[in-house]
């Protein structure tokens, strides 16, 4: 038995004497603990520090579990290990540069971060109605692809945490295909800074539509395979059914949104109830489950991916035939719209050759305009705005305050992971310690979004 002093243990004092005995564990070396627990007082509780470095805590989440045998008596959640000061940093950049920062918050759903921020900025500028239709369709397309890739990771990591590597591999393979599409369209697989105030950074490339069509052909079959693997799998059901129960009352009190809320039977989806980017014109369903448990949340996520695929199909239709067949992808307001049409070259994304030719060879005014708008940025009228969107994890919102300058005065993100993680204690206390993993995984927190 190790009795080394642990300064981080609860109740540790300055003179080096910790309250109770301390076991330092690395790997699956549990014999010491079993031996120690045997000869201990029966009233003793085991305090387990799970994380911040733990493979099944979705990054750097720290859970402090007080255990009575196998039963969890108390859960305390420690966060802040991935705080990067994104909100503070955004106050020192232009409004457009802000997208480069906020895309890095919830790193599994970068497009959503960008869109929430841009919708708030556009609201404050008063240009929401003037965003070109093609830009809105591309935004919806990207968001739904991102929802699929995010849910795939949610289900994949969930499988891994329960010990099912096949689920993990399948999920990540499909995600790769989604990220390939992102790379084709934006030039980057993650953290794209693709959605900008006023529209999107660039139009779809020539190969994008064909790749999207391939994707649409491939995915329904893959979803079916995933469902075959999991929907009625007895081991999976035993680990997920009636686990981490949280009903509608609990969700309301704790501010929970997203798949966790929809697994209680409430069809609350901001895409339907408070549509943005033209979601009211798409045909899709909001799926719910009544079971309030981990399995219900999985089913909701699966069904949402299938619905997202339907929306992607409608987007492709509009981008090739409908009213969004062509047209600008950035607001036609010279005072706001980024002057350059970006293009993907051999060395990555950059200004299009035509634009470079125009500003360097044809028009001095265009050059001045480009320079001013890029270095100084545009001004946003003073005021505050709040824009909420339905991210894969729930209500993601940006509260943006401007003092009328070229930089945000304050940007605050209401991240769904941050809020939903508060439900950990409500879901876990009284359950077995193994179910804590399932409960946390069913919340699907992304620590980059939690800590920002």
């Amino acid at each position, binding site marked *: 038995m190790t009795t080394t002093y642990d300064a981080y243990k609860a109740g540790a004092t300055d003179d080096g004497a910790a309250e109770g005995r301390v076991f330092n564990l690395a790997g699956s070396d549990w014999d010491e603990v079993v031996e120690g627990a045997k000869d201990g007082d029966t009233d003793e509780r085991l305090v387990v520090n799970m994380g911040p470095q733990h493979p099944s805590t979705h990054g750097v989440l720290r859970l402090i579990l007080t255990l009575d045998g196998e039963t969890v008596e108390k859960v305390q959640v420690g966060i802040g290990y991935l705080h990067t000061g994104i909100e503070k*940093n955004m*106050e020192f950049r232009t409004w457009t540069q802000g997208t480069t920062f906020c895309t890095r918050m919830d790193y599994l759903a970068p497009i959503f971060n960008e869109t929430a921020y841009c919708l708030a900025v556009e609201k404050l500028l008063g240009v929401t109605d003037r965003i070109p239709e093609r830009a809105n369709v591309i935004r919806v397309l990207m968001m739904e692809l991102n929802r699929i890739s995010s849910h795939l990771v949610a289900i994949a990591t969930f499988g891994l945490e329960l010990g099912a590597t096949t689920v993990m591999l399948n999920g990540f393979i499909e995600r790769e295909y989604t990220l390939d599409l992102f790379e084709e369209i934006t030039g980057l697989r993650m953290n794209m800074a693709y959605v900008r105030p006023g529209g999107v950074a660039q139009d779809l490339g020539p190969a994008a539509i064909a790749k999207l069509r391939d994707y649409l052909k491939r995915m329904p079959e893959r979803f079916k395979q995933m469902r075959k693997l999991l929907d009625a799998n007895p081991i999976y059901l035993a680990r997920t059914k009636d686990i981490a129960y949280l009903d509608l009352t609990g969700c309301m009190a704790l501010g929970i949104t997203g798949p966790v809320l929809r697994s209680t039977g*409430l069809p609350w989806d901001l895409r339907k109830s408070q549509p943005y980017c033209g979601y009211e014109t798409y045909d899709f369903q909001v799926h719910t489950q009544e079971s309030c448990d981990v399995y219900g949340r999985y089913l909701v996520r699966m069904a949402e991916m299938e619905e997202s695929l339907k929306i992607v199909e409608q987007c492709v239709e509009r981008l090739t035939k409908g009213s969004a067949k062509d047209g600008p992808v950035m607001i036609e307001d010279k005072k706001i719209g980024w002057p350059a049409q970006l293009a993907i070259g051999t060395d990555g994304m950059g200004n299009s050759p035509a634009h470079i030719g125009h500003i360097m060879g044809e028009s001095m005014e265009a050059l001045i*305009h480009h320079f001013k708008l890029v270095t100084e940025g545009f001004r946003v009228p003073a005021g505050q705005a709040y824009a909420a969107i339905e991210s894969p994890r729930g209500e993601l919102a940006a509260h943006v305050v401007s003092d009328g300058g070229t930089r945000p005065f304050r940007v*605050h993100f209401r991240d769904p992971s941050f809020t939903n993680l508060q439900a950990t204690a409500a879901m876990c206390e009284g359950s077995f310690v193994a179910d804590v993993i399932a409960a946390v995984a069913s919340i699907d927190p992304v620590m980059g979004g939690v*800590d920002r």
Partner: protein
Amino acid sequence: MSDIVQRRGMFGASTTGDTSGYGRLVVPQPARESTPRPYGEYFDEIADELDRSGFSDAVERVVVHRGEITFHVKRERLLELARTLRDEPALRFELLSGVSGVHYPAETGSELHAVYHLLSITHNRRIRLEVGVPDADPHVDSLVPVYPTADWHERETWDFFGIVFDGHPALTRIEMPDDWVGHPQRKDYPLGGIPVEYRGAEIPPPDERRSYS
């Protein structure tokens, strides 16, 4: 931000040096002080209901801007008002979306603002509550008794702005380390950073670079 800034020109140039022509444009700034009735949309119904419930003196001013309504609330009445907003059938704001702090150093006497976004799923409505407190006495009642979800949000606002939420069950830092000094999101707190060299030139840290604001 009580003083309305009149900004001239797209790029801020008001005298010389701007050859682009944008210096002659005047960007109108909407009055943000207070909005007279009627507010439009569903906002009047909510305001009427609040008046009926005896909160006409609790609301200092109302601002309607960009399709959103903000009730500036006296801090003494905040908790009581939140309870009514949640429980009254005609209001029914079940969900608190979060607390966001804003630091307005220029607004003497109410430098720190706690901004609450409420959502009613029953009526599909949103409102915003804003409470301003002086820097010298940064106390606001905690909303945890009414909305348990405020727990972490209030801890975050305490951590970043130093607003003390009275009645919070455990108001400790949440993002910064426990022994951190200062509240990083306040305007008087520097961003930090060091100059870096890029292709022979020295680039200053972001908060020391030229600002156009």
